[in-house]
């Protein structure tokens, strides 16, 4: 590695790390990003690509709304295509209980000034060709959308490089050297790096990484599954949630839908976790065929899994710490793709000004001061024992 100094070192080339790096480079900082694998090799390149205003998690609304705005110009901003499509997000209900949930969400949305509308089954059938007759109604968010995951994460990376930022793939962080309450250097498989600020954006490894600096960041890794079909006509540009699935039709025409149980898993700091699929993909296929009976004959051509990061309260952690005082924790709690433009903006503001223009109350690490090391076991968020 030719450099051993930078203004900021970012650990993790997922959407959280790269978006942060991009916004910092744009503000004139000399940024280095390291990743043990490739750009977007983990969750950031393997997710469902959904962008939403997170009405399900009111504390996140300011961040998520900011993100949906940043997304609208992200292609021009970065200079590379992300396939971002903002034709809205439709949540449909197939049971009375779900309809009740939708109406409750509508009320939250309206309270936060979010553009939302209840739609009748007949309108739903016009919006999504081939959808089931069984919907009882839906909730339409005008500003929701979806994007192509790998194109997006790579777009951040290329835009960073265009600004002079440096990116080292296949470079693993093995240690953080803390001296006098600061991370003095980051130890990697390609040598040590020193920086004014260090950003830990290591996804499911965020906790293990923070441990190296003596900080407890409660994040539990979990494996989740998703599948893709061959391209199918007719097209619908709207992101769709319903029948236990979330997903969208890619610009190319493939249906990309996920859902179902997750599996708590363990990761280690320096290797890429295994990401096998299980027969759960058949259950996803069934739910998709139920949701879109018009697509029942379309072949599934691949499935995949990813390992997400989950904090005890399902919310991101974005915080600049008191000790080590130059260390920033950024982790997204399994919804990091959609919010990524805003995540980067917040992180850059924290580094540059010590505070953010976006309301991130409730996302600080201090909310977990009472959470002990044994929290995963206590919550039942540990892997099941290996069977013979």
């Amino acid at each position, binding site marked *: 590695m030719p450099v051993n100094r930078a203004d900021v070192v970012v650990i993790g080339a997922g959407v959280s790390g790269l978006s942060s790096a991009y916004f910092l480079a744009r503000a004139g900082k000399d940024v280095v990003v390291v990743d043990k694998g490739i750009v977007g090799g983990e969750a950031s390149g393997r997710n469902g690509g959904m962008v939403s205003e997170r009405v399900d998690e009111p504390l996140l609304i300011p961040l998520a709304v900011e993100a949906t705005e940043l997304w609208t110009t992200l292609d021009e901003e970065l200079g590379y295509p992300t396939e971002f499509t903002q034709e809205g997000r439709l949540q449909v209900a197939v049971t009375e209980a779900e309809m009740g949930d939708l109406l409750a969400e509508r009320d939250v949305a309206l309270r936060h000034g979010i553009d939302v509308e209840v739609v009748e089954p007949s309108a739903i059938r016009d919006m999504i060709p081939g959808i089931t007759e069984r919907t009882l109604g839906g909730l339409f968010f005008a500003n929701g959308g979806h994007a192509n995951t790998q194109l997006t994460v790579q777009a951040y990376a290329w835009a960073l490089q265009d600004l002079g930022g440096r990116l080292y793939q296949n470079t693993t962080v093995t240690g953080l050297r803390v001296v006098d309450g600061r991370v003095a250097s980051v130890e990697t498989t390609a040598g040590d790096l020193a920086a004014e600020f260090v950003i830990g954006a290591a996804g499911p490894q965020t906790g293990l990484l923070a441990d190296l600096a003596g900080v407890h960041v409660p994040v539990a890794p979990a494996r989740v599954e998703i599948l893709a079909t061959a391209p199918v006509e007719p097209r619908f540009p709207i992101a769709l949630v319903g029948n236990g699935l979330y997903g969208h039709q890619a610009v190319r025409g493939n249906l990309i839908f996920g859902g179902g149980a997750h599996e708590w898993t363990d990761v280690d700091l320096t290797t890429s976790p295994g990401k096998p699929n299980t027969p759960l993909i058949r259950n996803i296929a069934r739910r998709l065929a139920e949701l879109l009976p018009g697509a029942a004959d379309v072949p599934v051509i691949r499935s995949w899994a990813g390992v997400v990061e989950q904090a005890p309260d399902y919310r991101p952690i974005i915080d600049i710490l008191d000790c080590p005082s130059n260390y920033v924790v950024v982790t997204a709690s399994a919804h990091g793709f959609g919010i990524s433009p805003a995540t980067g903006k917040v992180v850059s503001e924290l580094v540059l000004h010590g505070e953010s223009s976006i309301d991130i109350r409730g996302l600080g690490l201090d909310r977990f001061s009472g959470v002990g090391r044994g929290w995963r076991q206590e919550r039942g968020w540990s892997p*099941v024992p290996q069977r013979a």
Partner: protein
Amino acid sequence: MQVTLIDENPIAASMARLNVPQFFGQRFAGGLHDKSLMVERARAANEALAEAEAMGVDVQLGTCVWGAFRNSESSRVLDGPQLGLADNERSWLMKYDRLIVAAGARDLGLAFAGWDRRGAMAANGAYSLMRRYQALASQRMVVLGSGNLGLSTARMALDRGVDVAAVVDVSRSVRGDEAIVATLRESGVKLFTSHTVREAVGGNGEIESVVLVEIDDNCQPVAGSDKVIAADTVCLAVGLVPNVELLSLLGCDLSFEPELGGYVPDRDDWMRTSVESVFVAGDVAGFHDGMVLDTETARNQGRLAGIAAAKSLGAIDEAEAIARRSDLQAAAIDSKPTDTYANWIRWLQALLNAGGSEVFACPCEEVTCADLIDLRPPRFLDWETERTSPPSLKALAKDAPVNPDQVKRLTRAGMGHCQGRLCREQVALLLAEASETDVADMPVMSYRPPVRPLPLRVMWPHDESEQVRNEWAKWFSPTQQVLG
């Protein structure tokens, strides 16, 4: 012991149309739609099936294995290893104690202008249509490749009344068996060595003729040497690639062995892979051109895998296994490979030089060789850049060998409905060449289930448990971790 033999043949016409599992090039007769006729023919083409059945083997034809699931460090939900199976109507899961994967090899795809037309096919597809189904709908064929694979394909086609116009190879002399060459010559088949294909042309998406061109020692086309040959079929018969996708899903260690057709499973001398319960036999364990004429090698590997699996389950004891194995020693288990990959690389070079780089490397997603090398976003995005130095493969390759999965997701090469079957090797070779890396050092493009394109309604779990049905989570919820 209870033994089940699963084979996807006869395959559905809807699969054949997608060039799955082989490259059929749309040259199949209507009979392929008649499943019972095809079952009859597939049985007739393989006497060993009846033999196995007579011994009590449960033979399941027309059944594909689209998934292989097993617990690992990062997934522990299964109550034992299991396969995902399907016929044309439905899918199901099957548990096993031991698994012998004898999944054969698939067609190597190499791009030339017009290979996305009807009538471009490959050796294994042609073999299947001729031998198994008697349903090859070709009149006049040009065969690419003069190894035993190409020569045998040409001979078989002649035997079935197909007119074989030419056998073509980039090599200076014919690569395969002299005796077959003599038969072909007698039948009037022309052999073009030091030649390649410039393009296959015709109206309505069909192939009507093939343009051949002579090449020099540097694989460059010789000006003025073009020859137009009338043919409705071009059959790629340059090589076969071991079908390791299930082994990859199972987590068996694979090694790159260029002489054996690419990634092959690591195995011991009992045909056992790195996964204790999994054995391999036949072309899946490694294929080279010499094996075309020597089917005994594959058969012996199968016998050995059977003996070893029986031994590992205690059905026969060690002494008996060793005795039975020594009976096989007389016949070869391993035969001598040839310069497989070097030959492929020469072919690829010649085709690129003759046909240019605007040819589809990935026909399903219409990604050209140039798109791939320039890392262009998919064409349907109509993306233009004013950048003078757009991102390059070389930049991606700076820290480590280019990862084909990363390039796949950026360009879509290998993401189509044939699931990368046709373009995998070629994409890897092109990436290696453009980034100046040894293809052996590049990670393998990942395999994911289903390894056959399966309609949603087929994948549908008729055996879905109440628990999975009722405790489904749309996204995270603390109680809904492990189901199944």
